[in-house]
C-alpha cells in the first residue's frame, strides 16, 4: 500500500512543481539570505542570555570556575532537597568536576522516575532566547532533561553564542554532535503548561525547576543586571 501511495503522491507533487535541478534550487535558496534574529536586550551576551533565562521562568547562578560551580550546585541541592544527590550523564566534562569541593554525590548515568535532580553540561547556549543546547547520547541521556523534578544545566560562558544558528553550529561541532545524533534538545525553561484556563503552571510533565549555572570570568553585576532587565526583583527570581 505504502509503495503505491508513495508513487501516487510523488507523481502528484511532481505535477504541481516546476522540475528545477538541484543546483538551480540551491542557488535560489541561498539567494533568499539569512533569517533576521532577535535583537539582544543588552550588549553583554551573558546579561542577554540570563535575561531570557529569567523571562523563561528559569533561575540562574554564576560561578567563576568549575570548583565554584560544584559549590553552587551543592548549595542549590541542599536548599531545595536537603540532599546532595544528583544524576549526571557520562560526560567527560561532568566526570572531571571537583565534586568533593561542593560535597555533591553524583550518580553517573540515566535518570529514573523519582530522581529529584539531574545535571547536564550544555554543548552550547543562545543569548537570543535563553536556550541551552543538549545533544543526546551517553553524555546526556534525554531522560535526564525530562524525568527529574529539577534540571540543572552548566553552561560555559565561552559557549554562549548570540543566536540559535550559531549555537546549533557549535553544538554540532563537538564530538557528541558530529555524527547526526539521535536528538538535539534546545531547552529554554522548565516544563510548563497554560492548558487549564490559561493559568501558567510549571512542572507539567518534566522538571518543575530549571536552573542554569553560568561558568566563567563574568562581571560581578551580570546577574543583577539581567534580573533587573527582566523586571524581576531578587525575591521573585
Amino acid at each position, binding site marked *: 500500500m505504502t509503495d503505491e501511495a508513495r508513487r501516487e503522491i510523488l507523481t502528484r507533487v511532481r505535477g504541481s512543481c516546476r522540475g528545477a535541478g538541484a543546483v538551480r534550487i540551491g542557488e535560489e535558496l541561498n539567494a533568499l539570505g539569512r533569517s533576521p534574529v532577535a535583537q539582544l536586550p543588552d550588549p553583554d551576551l551573558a546579561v542577554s542570555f540570563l535575561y531570557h533565562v529569567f523571562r*523563561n521562568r528559569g533561575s540562574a547562578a554564576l560561578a567563576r570556575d568549575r570548583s565554584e560551580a560544584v559549590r553552587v550546585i551543592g548549595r542549590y541541592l541542599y536548599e531545595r532537597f536537603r540532599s546532595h544527590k544528583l544524576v549526571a550523564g557520562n560526560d567527560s566534562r561532568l566526570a572531571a568536576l571537583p565534586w568533593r569541593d561542593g560535597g555533591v554525590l553524583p550518580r553517573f548515568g540515566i535518570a529514573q522516575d523519582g530522581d529529584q535532580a539531574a545535571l547536564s553540561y550544555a554543548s552550547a547556549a543562545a543569548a537570543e532566547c535563553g536556550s541551552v543546547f543538549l545533544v543526546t547520547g551517553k553524555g546526556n541521556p534525554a531522560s535526564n532533561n525530562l524525568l527529574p523534578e529539577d534540571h540543572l544545566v552548566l553552561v560555559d560562558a565561552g559557549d554562549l553564542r548570540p543566536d540559535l544558528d550559531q549555537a546549533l553550529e557549535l553544538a554540532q561541532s563537538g564530538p557528541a554532535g558530529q555524527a547526526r545524533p539521535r536528538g*538535539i534538545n534546545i531547552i529554554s*525553561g522548565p516544563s510548563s503548561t497554560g492548558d487549564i*484556563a490559561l493559568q501558567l503552571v510549571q512542572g507539567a510533565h518534566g522538571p518543575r525547576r530549571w536552573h542554569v549555572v553560568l561558568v566563567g570570568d563574568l562581571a560581578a553585576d551580570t546577574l543583577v543586571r539581567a534580573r533587573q532587565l527582566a523586571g524581576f526583583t531578587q525575591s521573585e527570581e
Partner: protein
Amino acid sequence: MATWTWPLSVRANRTVEQHCEDFLDQASAAMAQPERRKTMDMLGLLMPLMRGQAVADFGDFEGLRQHVRAIRQHTLDNLDHYLPKFEQEALSNGNRVHFARSGEELNSIVLGICQQHKARRVTKGKSMVTEETALNDYLLKAGLAVVETDLGEYIIQQAGETPSHIVAPAIHKPVAEIRQLFLDKHALGERELETAADMVTESRQVLREHFLASEVGIIGANALVAENGYSLLVTNEGNGDLCATLPPVLIVCTTMERIVPRTRDALALVRLLARSAVGQSISCYTSFYSGPRRADEQDGPLETHIVLLDNHRSEILASDYREMLQCIRCGACLNHCPVYVAAGGHAYGAVYPGPVGSVLTPLLSSLEEAQLLPNACTSCGRCEEVCPAAIPLPQLLRDLRHEEFRTGLTAGRWRLGLRLHAWVAGHPRLYRYATGLGIRLLHRLGRKKGGFRHLPLAGGWTSQRDLPAPQGGTFSQLYARRQRDRDDD
C-alpha cells in the same frame, strides 16, 4: 509498573461531536454559556497583547515573517526536490518512512506498526494530523489503549470531546469542569484539587505512569528538515519529548508541507512560532530528532517510523489555495478572530477552527459540507495581519465564497440579493441614487429615536442590537464633499 492498570477512560471513544453544517446553532449555544465565555474573552484579550509585545521585542519581525514566507514558498515550489530528499535522509538515519494518501491509510499504517510489536499501550503527543485522521478512535476500536499526554488534549480526551483550539485544545473548559472531570475519572481518593497547580500535579502523576508503561509513542512534527532528515518537535510541557524518548517504538505522524530545506530554516520558523502562538520568545522544549537510538545510548526508541500523510494536500498544492500549505499551525489567526473568540472552536465542527480552519476544512473535506465556514468571517483582516506565514486568509475566504456562489451552493435568496447588488453596484449613477434615497429615508424614519429596534430585511442585525439612524449622507456624498472642501482650500 507491572501492576498499573489503564483506566477505562482511555479506552472510551468520543462522545461529543459537532458538525460544520451546524455552525450557526453551535455558535449560538457556545455564546449562551457565560462560564465558558470568560476564558475565551481572556484569550481574545491576552493573546494579542502578548504576541504584540513579543513581536515588538524581536526587532525586525516583519523581515523574519517575509523571510520564512519566502522559504516556505520556495519549498512548496520545489517540493518535488525536497520531499524525496527528506525521505532519503530520513531513511539513511535509520527511520522507516511511510506514505499515506488518506486518513484511513495513515491509521492503518500506525495500527499495523502497533500490531507488529504486539503493543497494547500507546502514548501520544499533541498532533493535529492525527486529529484529522481520527487515529485515536481507530486504535481504540482495534483494542489498543491510547492516552493523550498534552494536558489540554488529555482533558478533552477524558471528557470525550474534540479540541477547540489548535494550540490550547481545552481552552473552552472552565476550571470547575476540569476539577470535576479529574474527580470522576481518577481513582485517587481524597486529595487537594483546588487550584490549576493541583490539577497539573495530578495529571503529571497519572500521565508519568503512562509514559513509563507504553510500548509505542506517537508524536507530530512542527517541521521536517530535508538536508538531514531531522524532524522538529516544539512543546512547552515536554510531553512530546517523553513520547519520543521512553517508549521502544516511535511513530511521527506528519505531512509533507512541514518540510523546510535546512536546519537554519527550521530555526527561523521556531523564531516565529512561539511568538505568534503565545507571545513567548521560544517554547520550553525545541527538539530535533533524527531516528532510533544509537549504540551508546541508554534511552530513546529502538525503532522509528515517519508517516507522511497527503489527505488532499497534493491537490491543494496544485490549486489556487497553495498558500494555505505555508501555515505553521500557530493559532494566531484564531486568537485574533472576533468570530472565533465569540463562537469558540467547537462551533466550527471541524478539526481546524477559526480562519485557518474556515479555509482548510472545505479543502480537506468539501465545500458542500463546509460551505458555512468561509462565511464565518467579518472581513476585518486581523488574521492576515498576524499570520506569521503571511497567508492572505481573507482573500482565500473570499475566493471560497465566490466558489460557493459559482457552483450554485449559495441559497437562492442570497444569490438573488448578490446578483441585484452586483447589478446596482455596476451602475454607479443608479447606485448613488439608490443609496442616497435609502439613507435619506432611514434618516427621516429614525431621527426621532435615533435608531431602529426592528427593520425589515435587517432582522439579523436588529435581533441583537439597534441600528443607528444614518447621519450626514452616504459615503460617496461625504467623500465628494471632502474633495470639494479640499479643492476650495
